[in-house]
């Protein structure tokens, strides 16, 4: 019997994706609009033989997640804006100590308590620079229920591959949306595991560079006794203030991801071949954008759309190409222009960048994007 379509919510798809990816530890704290993830995890994680625990706050949640990952489990937490703010210190810890973990941020309108049940994409920059200090980060943004599933798996894959925290930025519209989806069969999406050391314990260099930029990671209790710290450390993990040890550490943290930029250009493009104006969008806005592009095409406008799936590291190569091939680009967002600023940074005068920003908690509609396209069309 062929697999059947099932009706699934974005948050539920994240849970299914996480379990498929091999996630066996969830710690969290309730917050709208991410609570469905926690509720589904409370039900399904124990059945999968994993650990579910409700912690006393979001700081504790990510602390527990990092601890579980150090003990060898793929680990997840989910939250929304205010909780995401509280997690920032531990995101930095995970980046510095190179502990794989996945954080789902179901974005709601802010700042502060904002509009707890309404849509926004206001955490894009917080995902990039929310924790202090220079650090690498990976963030992905699904625009459909299927992509919630797919990108949650990929978030785990990337976090395992690069030993880094990965953030899934799901806007409230996608988090709460229900769609019929055909989930891929088990094994269809490859599952990656962190590289573990194979050398004898006395040979293990926990923070050395084996050539890939990503040191093999031992789980606590596996016989490789080593030190993990948020302090700047040498290759053994011991604290250091020596410039000739600190500098290579920070540069390696960046380069282990930047050397793979080519592998991190994940996007979908629609009608871009002859597009005079191209829409660059992500999350639920990309759906509205696609509808707007279709309508505009019917009206004879040569417009296209590029949907970004990877938000951080910013896909300079992909976006640069779009800017090169279009007369104008339009970046519609449910924020005051967090990604459009990146597009302008990459643009370097190649073409005109128009923005469309919505911050009232309601989703951007196809009509609004269409209207803007007609307005800016040369």
């Amino acid at each position: 019997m062929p697999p059947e379509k099932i009706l699934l919510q974005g948050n539920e798809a994240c849970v299914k994706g996480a379990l498929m990816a091999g996630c066996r530890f969830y710690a969290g704290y309730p917050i709208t609009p991410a609570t469905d993830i926690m509720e589904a995890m409370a039900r399904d994680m124990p059945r999968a033989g994993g650990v579910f625990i409700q912690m006393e706050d979001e700081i504790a949640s990510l602390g527990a997640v990092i601890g579980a990952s150090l003990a060898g489990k793929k680990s997840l937490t989910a939250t929304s804006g205010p909780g995401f703010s509280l997690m920032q210190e531990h995101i930095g810890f995970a980046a510095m100590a190179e502990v794989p973990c996945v954080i789902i941020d179901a974005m709601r309108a802010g700042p502060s308590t904002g509009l707890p049940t309404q849509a926004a994409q206001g955490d894009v920059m917080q995902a990039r620079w929310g924790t202090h200090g220079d650090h690498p980060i990976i963030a992905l943004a699904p625009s459909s229920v299927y992509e919630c599933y797919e990108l949650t798996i990929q978030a785990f894959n990337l976090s395992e591959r690069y030993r880094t925290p990965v953030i899934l930025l799901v806007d409230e519209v996608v988090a709460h949306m229900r769609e019929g989806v055909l989930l891929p069969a088990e094994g269809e999406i490859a599952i990656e595991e962190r590289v573990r050391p194979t050398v004898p314990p006395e040979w293990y260099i926990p923070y050395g560079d084996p050539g890939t930029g990503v040191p093999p990671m031992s789980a606590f209790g596996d016989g490789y006794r080593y030190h993990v710290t948020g302090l700047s450390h040498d290759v053994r993990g011991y604290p250091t203030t020596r410039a000739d040890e600190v500098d290579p550490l920070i540069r390696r943290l960046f380069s282990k991801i930047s050397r793979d930029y080519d592998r991190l250009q994940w996007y979908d493009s629609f009608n871009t071949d002859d597009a005079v104006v191209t829409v660059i969008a992500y999350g639920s806005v990309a759906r509205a954008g696609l509808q707007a592009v279709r309508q505009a095409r019917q009206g004879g406008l040569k417009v296209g759309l590029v949907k970004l799936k990877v938000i951080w590291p910013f896909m300079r190569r992909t976006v640069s190409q779009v800017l090169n091939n279009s007369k104008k680009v339009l970046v519609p967002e449910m924020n005051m222009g967090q990604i459009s600023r990146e597009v302008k940074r990459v643009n370097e005068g190649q073409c005109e960048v128009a923005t469309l920003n919505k911050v009232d908690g309601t989703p951007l509609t196809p009509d609004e994007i269409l209207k803007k396209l007609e307005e800016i069309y040369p």
Partner: protein
Amino acid sequence: MKETEHLIHKYLRSSKKFPHIWCGGCGIGIFMNALIRVIDGTGYSKDDIVIISGIGCSGRLPVYVDFNTLHTTHGRALTFATGIKMAKPSLKVIVVMGDGDAAAIGGNHLIHAARRNVEITSFIINNQVYGMTGGQISPTTPYGATTVTSPYGNLEPAFDICRLTEAAGASFVGRSTVYHTGLLDRLISQALNKKGFSVVEVIAQCVIFGGRWLGMDSAVRMMNWQKENSVTVEKAKGLSEAELEGKIVIGVLADRERPTYNEQYRKLLTEKLKI
């Protein structure tokens, strides 16, 4: 002496550069010595022990000892410990915190770890001051004490960490000073052997900053103060609140059987869900 040398070789990291960061006369080293002495007698393999700390002078302890070691963020050591213990229950999870670490910034985690009764052995080294940042008041600094952030005298009453954690639900609560090394060893041993969440408050001297406001300028004077101001639990029973004012009550303050979170979770999987 011979035995101590042997333990140092066995438990301190030969690859780590010494000396340690602690000031001469600091009480943390006495505690570390006691900890490895007791661990050596328990029969745990070094591979099975995880030592976790937060931030502060106590936070530096794990790096010197040859276990699985984790130096976390300020106040949050217990959250990481909870994740580790739940993810891999076979590990013996030990947490070392300071007074500011555990009772101020980490106070919320402390009460909830005790309430859940996660199988974690925790030690709170209480020197009644923020030592690493230069001698500011902590939640355990005595009322009226003059420090760099209480130049006109501390306006806040001090926390009783043991009463707090006992009330929150810890299975085992004890207190010693670093002067009372025999008692300290016994409490460490009892705490390590206790199944649920255990807390030992270790009163220690910060000679540099604590000593300054107590008017004591040497480790010997501060440890004499610990000796003279301590009252055993048994003796304290016969004393009034007024007589106990300013005294350090030492000994076992709580020792009880409560279902641990780990047991409950295991039961959920095996009995309820039949996994």
